[in-house]
């Protein structure tokens, strides 16, 4: 959306005052959009950050460098796919399902130790977009606590 499109669609009925009002309205609208986009970006950055913290807290026992989950995944899928934080092929629904039902040696996790809202954030973190990964300088530096 831009000013040009608006101007051509709605010709000025009120002379310069109308133009001024329209310009002000446009500025306000653009500001609103910018704030909304910014908020979404903040929101998702916050969710990714929250998910990262929860992942390390709840899953870090086994899924950081040197952890038992990492070792098991390296054996099954190869070393380059063993650290969940570095994976780019994970899908949020898959992450959530596996957490709840378990897989191979990994037991299931119930909704008391990892409530749904926390699992949602963990899944958001593990499936975060490439743009969020570039900013994440600490990734894969963790080790099993």
């Amino acid at each position, binding site marked *: 959306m831009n000013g040009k499109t608006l101007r051509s669609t709605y010709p000025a009925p009120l002379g310069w005052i109308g133009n001024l009002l329209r310009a002000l309205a446009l500025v306000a609208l653009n500001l609103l959009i910018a704030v909304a986009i910014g908020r979404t970006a903040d929101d998702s950055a916050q969710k990714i950050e929250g998910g990262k913290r929860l992942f390390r807290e709840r899953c870090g*026992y*086994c899924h950081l460098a*040197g*952890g*038992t989950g990492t*070792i*098991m995944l390296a*054996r099954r899928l190869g070393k380059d796919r063993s650290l969940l934080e570095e994976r780019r092929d994970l899908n949020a629904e898959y992450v959530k399902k596996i957490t*709840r*039902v*378990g897989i*191979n*040696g990994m*037991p*299931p*996790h*119930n*909704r*008391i*130790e990892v*409530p749904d809202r926390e699992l949602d954030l963990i899944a958001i973190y593990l499936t975060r977009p490439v743009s969020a990964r570039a900013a994440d300088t600490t990734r894969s530096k963790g080790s*099993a*606590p």
Partner: protein
Amino acid sequence: MRSILPPRVTEHTFQRALNGFAGVVGKEWVLATEEDRETFMDYYAAGDADLHVPSAAVGPQSVEEVQAIVRIANEYRVPLWPVSRGKNLGYGAAAPCMTGTVVLDLGRMNRILDVNERFGYCLIEPGVGFFDLFNHLQTNKIKLWMSIPANAWGSVVGNALERGYGYTPYGENTRNICGLEVVLPNGEVLRTGNGAMSNSSSWQLFKYGYGPSWDQLFCQSNFGIVTKMGMWLMPEPEATLGLNIQLPHPDDVGWAVDELAPLRLKGVIEQSPSIGNSLRFVASATQRSQWYQGNGALPDDVLAEILKKNNLGWWTINLRLYGYDEVNEAHARIIKDAFAKHMKQEIQAVKWHRGEPIDNSGAGIPATTALQIINWRGGRGGHIGFSPILPATSEHVLKQFHNTKKRYEEIGVDYYGSFTLFERYTTNVNMMVYDRDDTAMTSKVRALFKVLIADAAKEGYSEYRTHISYMDDVALTFDFNHHALLRLNETLKDALDPNGILAPGKQGIWPRALRTERA
């Protein structure tokens, strides 16, 4: 959706109880879908998870909520199975003994209420995991060390109540319990020991209180729900000295026990050294098919070849001395001299001094890597532990070792055992590692378990802890005077829990109304 109900309880009554629980903890913390139920089942079970299906789970966050839940459970006769974090892997995890029992998951009660460095203790809630307490001590630079079991995912409180152990001089976790807060089956809350005095200044200092001492009555029992536990922690030592000893031959475990046990009794060795068959290291790092494709237990010659390639003896002893450097040195010399009588190999020592990184210090550092062994067989692995107590002598240890190994070979499972030496006895943990989807194998494992209980009982060996499927079998081996101890436990059970709502069947103790459920 399949309905699972406790015995004696109708669907309607059960729903009313669940609504009551939700009124206490909020709907979010009452879990009763089929998927929820499965998350509380025994994931590693040897084919018998269906015998222990919970009907639901409820997760309180405070002692008041626990009390309210217990009162509702009494009202509707709905049984509860308390778990601290539910990670009792190899012994049933979070699953209840009796199908239909509601899991009371205390994982949300996870506060570290007090840590006292001067007197070396902590006061914690059941949801506190080994990692949580460890991180708390590290972050706050508190110079106290923990004793940590092989798999550290679980609860500090749960492990101590089940009499689990670690490998520092404070290894016997149940011995370090000092003061409990407990919700009784009628919903009343009490504090044991000196905590019974409301302004006590020594709840975590003096264990016994005044009159009968109750802490151990709430261990491996169904007499109350522990909501707080005091636990002694070990002051960080000035130095440690570790000895890694490889015993070349299977029968060496005999003389090793005879040499080590007196040193353990005298306090030359203050921690509990574990003598484990070295296959555990190979099983953690590799899979069986890499070494052997045949059926049946690993033949002795194949095993010998594997150990040789990995530069391992038949047994590995991890032994650690804690304290002042000079004392550790002197004690190490005594131990080395004892071993020199039997073997030529030089024993390597690893030293640590205060201020150095603790990675190789012998401090309890939580990890979950011990779980790797369940991949040994391939497929979806599982494990179960058979853990008898024997007198710490070569005669008993060798007899038990050879019998267990022979029994394992009869059903084609690889022997995997360890002897951990305490002052007077040894705890012999035998792991059975299997592919959960191989039903022929899991049914043999279940049969083997019963045979091992019977074999041990014949020799006068009792289990220190057992899986939920064998709680009655083991309880019945305590048979002196027509099971007088079990009868006392059940007399107490009926007095404290007349409605039989707390953990029916735990350790073979059944409330009157449910004794027909005994296996």
